């Protein structure tokens, strides 16, 4: 299982990357995609939408279930990954490359874990 060191993680299994230019990229972790199984669709917000910390901004569908994807921050959506809509399997194949949204104007952040702490957290969840 993969836990890239440069990312931060939420306890609800999303990852967030600081792009260094005021924007952040968000996706779901390897642990999440493994637990969810084969994903068939992702529902994303629209550009310009507001996202709220620890609230759902979208969801992912497997054949038999839907799971909310929660935002680690309060911010504004500046870009969505349209490719995800056509190729949801990329979330399973490459969870850290298959990003969901890019946000800016972050006003609130939840307490995030670094890679090491998240890996330890996942070990307790399994």
């Amino acid at each position, binding site marked *: 299982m993969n836990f890239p060191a440069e990312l931060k993680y939420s306890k609800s299994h999303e990852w967030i990357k600081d792009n260094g230019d005021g924007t952040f990229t968000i996706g779901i972790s390897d642990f999440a995609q493994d637990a969810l199984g084969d994903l*068939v*669709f992702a529902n994303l917000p629209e550009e310009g939408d507001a996202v709220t910390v620890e609230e759902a901004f979208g969801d992912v*569908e*497997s*054949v*038999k279930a839907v799971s909310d994807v929660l935002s680690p921050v309060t911010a504004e959506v500046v870009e969505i990954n349209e490719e995800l809509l056509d190729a*949801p399997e990329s979330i399973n194949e490459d969870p850290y490359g298959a990003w969901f949204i890019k946000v800016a104007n972050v006003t609130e952040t939840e307490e995030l874990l670094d890679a090491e702490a998240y890996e330890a957290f996942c070990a307790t969840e399994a």
Partner: protein
Amino acid sequence: MQLIFERSKKGRKLSLFPACDVPAFELDAPKRADAPKLPEISENELDRHYTELAKHAQGLNDGFYPLGSCTMKHNPKINEQAAALDGFTQVHPLQAEAEVQGSLEVIKRATDTLCEITGMDNMTLQPAAGAHGEFTGLLLIKAYHEARGDKKRTKIIVPDSAHGTNPASAAMAGYDVVSVESNEDGCVDLDKLRAVVGEDTAGLMLTNPNTVGIFDKNILEITNIIHEAGGLCYYDGANLNAVMGYVRPGDMGFDVIHLNLHKTFSTPHGGGGPGSGPCGCKEFLAPYLPGMTVVENNGVYSFTKAEHSIGDMKAFYGNFLVIVRALTYLLTVGKEGIPAASRNAVLNANYMKAKLEDIYPMAYDTTCMHEFVMSLEGMKHDIDVSALDVAKALLDRGIHPPTMYFPLIVHEALMVEPTETECKETLDHAIDAFRSTYEDAKANPERMHMMPMETPVKRLDEVRAARTPVVKFSFED
């Protein structure tokens, strides 16, 4: 199997219509560019096509259907005869009332009988399915609160064990859904319920027995809690087959209910419909009923519309021919037959449960009602055999699997509802099938993942079907 479009061949047809005996008329309107690619086929081929399809379908006539929460009881053939009578099938819904007294009588008698069985004062037969009935009932609740000028009641409470249509219907009625956790008995946790009830409670949706097949003893307390907070109580009638004739939702504190004629009242499932979902209510909600209700005056029936009716749930009066079937059933079983059905439904379920509980863990260790839930969580953990694997293995033994993965509060759930119309030998045979499946699973868990192996198709790739949906035939070949 060939698709009908693959059997189709240009020029094949049936000779159905005589030449037009009036002058042709060229309509001044834009026409479609190409004819629709409907099948071109002879009657012979058409007959064979659907015969082949029928061989790959499983009716109640083919075998036991122990689907929990579906009440797959026998569909009496006299019901079909009644529903095929010309007097019922050849009548236009917009004929004058004097010309359709028979149809009005069907609606009135079915309504009155179902009201007596459920303890309700009035009922609309307009909803076409259970979920439709739920939506109706919630709209009655909404209309009631709005008429009282009470706009702060925005929430409907739904137990986490509820059928998915419950919260979906509440959302369609514009309500926020508050989930209340069940306790370890599978019943409503009274403290948790009290904690979520308040001035914003429009109502509660509940079924009793609940979706794990247990009769919630606290029902009067539950409905009281809601009423005291100013909310109303909605009864999901899907499980009525467990208690009809012994208990009435109207006597348990429920204000509004729906019924599933295609479950409790023996009308056929049709491969997914048509059903019928009458919505019954107490007198104070009757002014809001949708559609037309029937009144009788000196033996003459007529339609009337509630004075503050919420409108219509669908066109006309409901799935009328389904209602005809249900009335036929009600006339057949009558006052003794209703409780006889429910007590035997409960007996058959307890009988099967008693014969399986030594090897299949029951989710709840108490007398069940008309259905019981087994949990294969232990099997999944110990030998990686899931509820799905067991269900698929039963297919090879000619038994339709029980309901899988419902309710959500039980992990790896299999819910079994035999119904009262099964004889002891059928139940014993099913019990043997469950037991031998268990033995096979223990002996060879790996093989269970490949089930079913004897069916015409094997496990289907549902991921592919969802990722790249192909939802119609492609003619470009």
